[in-house]
């Protein structure tokens, strides 16, 4: 059983590219990779630290030797094309899967952004945009999965039993992945809200101090203030007795500017907050919908030998029922025979008696 390996002469044999060994993790065998092109080689001890042995190369060498033997005997039939016609179900499922993974990536980026807590580098518009995009994606995925489910249901009659289970399982797992993702999205939004609140409170802490000093240098800070309008005005009120009207004009114009900026900023902040809340509510409804769908088709956590025992039990129960029925039927038969005999006897007696 120990095959001898011929090292070093294996590259580019038969025009097939034998790439780097499969110990590198990039090569994920995907089902839709065209199989007719590359049949990768693998060294005997494979997959770094694995406890299994790859016999694919041995298998292929056996195939080649058999083919060589057969070629002399019969003409080779055309090989089946490995890239088959895919059903539209599979295509759709694959598309949804790809979209899901893309949205996941976006969600991860959003998570990183939302967790930043610095006061100054707040990438609010980016976060909002990303949130919007992710929300749209989740909605569209939801619709796509609903369509897929419709497709599966409409095909249920012409599909075989196993194919039906297979399709249903795919739909369910896509739904649960989407549910997990919307859950993550929701928690990211919550984190974001928390952070906004924190920023708000921290700015409130910082804002009284700089407002006392130079208005010029404090304007960038104030420009970022969330609710600073109130505090500024209040402080100005408190300072008013000590101020001269010369300053007043200067400050008034500045204040007008600042107030304008602040109100527009406050407005945008309020909008963001509202946005987040509506998103949370919408997500909640989607989530509920998904949970409902998942629950419909969810199986109890079980092991793979559960069904066998179930069916065995059912078969035994059915067997006992059949036995009982058989007994009753045969019992009936005996009864019938007895009754028949008795009737015959009476008939004979009657006839004899009469006759």
């Amino acid at each position, binding site marked *: 059983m120990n095959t001898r390996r011929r090292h070093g002469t294996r590259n580019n044999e038969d025009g097939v590219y034998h790439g780097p060994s499969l110990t590198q*993790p990039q090569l994920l065998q995907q089902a839709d990779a065209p199989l007719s092109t590359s049949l990768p080689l693998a060294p005997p001890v494979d997959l770094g630290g694995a406890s*299994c042995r790859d016999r694919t190369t041995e298998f292929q060498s056996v195939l080649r030797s*058999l083919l060589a033997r057969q070629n002399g005997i019969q003409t080779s039939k055309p090989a089946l094309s490995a890239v088959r016609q895919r059903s539209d179900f599979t295509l759709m499922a694959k598309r949804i899967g790809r979209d899901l993974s893309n949205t996941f990536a976006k969600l991860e980026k959003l998570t990183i952004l939302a967790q930043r807590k610095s006061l100054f580098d707040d990438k609010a518009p980016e976060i909002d945009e990303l949130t919007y995009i992710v929300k749209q994606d989740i909605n569209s995925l939801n619709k796509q999965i609903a369509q897929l489910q419709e497709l599966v249901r409409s095909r249920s009659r012409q599909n075989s039993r196993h194919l039906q289970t297979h399709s249903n399982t795919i739909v369910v797992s896509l739904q649960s992945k989407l549910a997990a993702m919307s859950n993550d999205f929701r928690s990211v939004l919550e984190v974001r809200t928390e952070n906004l609140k924190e920023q708000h409170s921290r700015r409130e802490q910082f804002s009284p101090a700089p407002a006392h000093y130079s208005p010029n240098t404090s304007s960038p800070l104030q420009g970022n203030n969330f609710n600073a309008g109130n505090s500024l005005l209040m402080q100005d009120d408190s300072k008013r007795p000590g101020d001269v009207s010369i300053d007043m004009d200067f400050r008034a114009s500045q204040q007008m500017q600042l107030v304008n900026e602040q109100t527009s900023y406050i407005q945008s902040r309020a909008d963001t907050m509202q946005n987040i809340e509506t998103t949370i509510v919408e997500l909640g409804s989607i989530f509920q919908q998904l949970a409902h769908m998942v629950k419909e088709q969810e199986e109890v956590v079980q092991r793979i030998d559960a069904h066998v025992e179930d069916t065995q039990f059912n078969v035994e129960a059915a067997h006992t029922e059949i036995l009982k029925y058989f007994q009753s039927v045969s019992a009936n038969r005996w009864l019938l025979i007895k009754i028949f005999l008795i009737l015959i006897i009476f008939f004979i007696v009657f006839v004899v008696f009469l006759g």
Partner: protein
Amino acid sequence: MAASVREKQTAALKRMLNLNAPLLKNTAAEPVWKVLVYDRFGQDIISPLLSVKELRDMGVTLHLLLHSDRDPIPDVPAIYFVMPSEENIDRICQDLRNQLHETYYLNFISAISRSKLEDIASAALTANATTQITKVFDQYLNFITLEDDMFILCNQTKEMISYHAINKPDIMDTDMETIMDTIVDSLFCFFVTLGAVPIIRCPRGNAAEMVAVKLDKKLRENLRDARNSLFTGDNMGSGQFSFQRPLFVLVDRNLDLATPLHHTWTYQALIHDVLDFHLNRVNIEEASGTEASPAGARPKKKNKKSYDLTAADKFWQKHKGSPFPEVAESVQEELDTYRAQEDEVKRLKSIMGLEGEDEGAISMLSDNTAKLTSAMSSLPELLEKKRLIDLHTNVATAVLDHIKSRKLDVYFEYEEKLMSKSTLDKSLLDIISDPDAGTPEDKMRLFLIFYITAPMPPSEADVEQYKKALLDAGCDLSPLNYIKQWKAFTKMAATPANYGNSGVKPMGLFSRVMNTGSQFVMEGVKNLVLKQHNLPVTRILDNLMEMKSNPETDDYRYFDPKMLRGNDSSIPRNKNPFQEAIVFVVGGGNYIEYQNLVDYTKARQGKRVFYGCSELFNAAQFLKQLSELGQK
């Protein structure tokens, strides 16, 4: 061996399910759907390790038995996890001809031979499916891991390698060879998965020695073949920072026949003894209600319930080895904590209801949302906890019923005294003639233990007396014949197994173990406390691991597959005590020994012990095998 065997086997299975590519941690990867096809061996291996949910997470949409009718499922790869036997290979070739799937990943549980590989290749050629077979792998996973540190060989064909099969008097050489080969193959797979080459020690003159010789040869061959070896290169480097090699102790069941018959008092062993416990799954029959069955019609339906006792169940992991009264108390405690948490959630709900009436500001709403979210997220945990508590309550109640009806505590106490050779307060005859203390099997077990552990065989008259009493109780006496023979054999060997000093202290005759309101009213059941003692297997392991010199174990053979010359000197080269050990019992094992080994390991820091056996039987099954042997 930082990772346990279970983790290694699970990792190997997951890698296989990932189409034989190493697992990435990337959750954003596109899902790949696949179909898993297995035979009964594969089913037994996978079912304790991966639940259906975990399979689904890995993208497996369908899992089917190899020999069932399968419909063609296009567009997806199929992963086969089967043993390389004739019928399986035929079925695979048939599948190839019927073109059931798009691509095939064939994983064989143990190594497939060259000729069978050629069979598959020729079938693939005739079916024009050569491009569809993407990968062929030997997985070397031909053993079943039940716990982190316990494994058994196989479940499906265990009659072939049972104690009965190995020890029957009319066994043929060829049969013995096949049995040995099966055992050695599985052990080899175990060591490949573990990634370590052990030092083997075994006693002389029985089945264990034969297994050791063969295993040594197989390991040696594999190590010699440098290019194809499974033990070199990355295998050794991955996470194995211990430079010590593990110790592999092979013992035979004949060393100690009393332990499988022993009545036990720890939770897991009790479940195995009393209920139907199989591959970490308990099946309990609950007779349903008390409706009068109408005449001549259907019998009462019994509800069969099965529960899985898994590694994720924290209560189970903590209390597997605790004595039963402790388990009952802990269930009660868990129930109390659960009720407290449930009340907390209910209180939260009522508070929510009140506060939701004001038109709160945004902050109040978000506070409530936060509270609600936390309550909601803890709800699944609570539900899970409740399910586990229910499970353990049912199981413990079932066990308790058995204990009460069969008076197992009496047996346990008596047997402990027998095995430790302390004074007996009741005579054996009394217990045997007691009509409501246990089934005839229990009495037979007690008597056999008495017979085995008696230093001098009892006189003929006594034996006759006992036999009469046993026959009155309805026991089958054939095991006794076999035990007599066995005792005659082992008399020549070393002193009969010394079970060490143990003591069983009943904590008074409690009528209730817990406070009122509990469901576990252990009336009349003694609350026995186990004292630490060492079974023979544990003692042998202790001697070998610590390199102590002891007349029992000095005689053991020593094998080191890594040494150049295969000499079987009994002089161990390694003078240091071992840190890791694997104990394997040829002929069958049980949970009592396992528990004893676990206790031994807990008492010593830094040592790891794995327990394996060729099959796992409880006392009833063992008794059956003994009676078959005695009837020959």
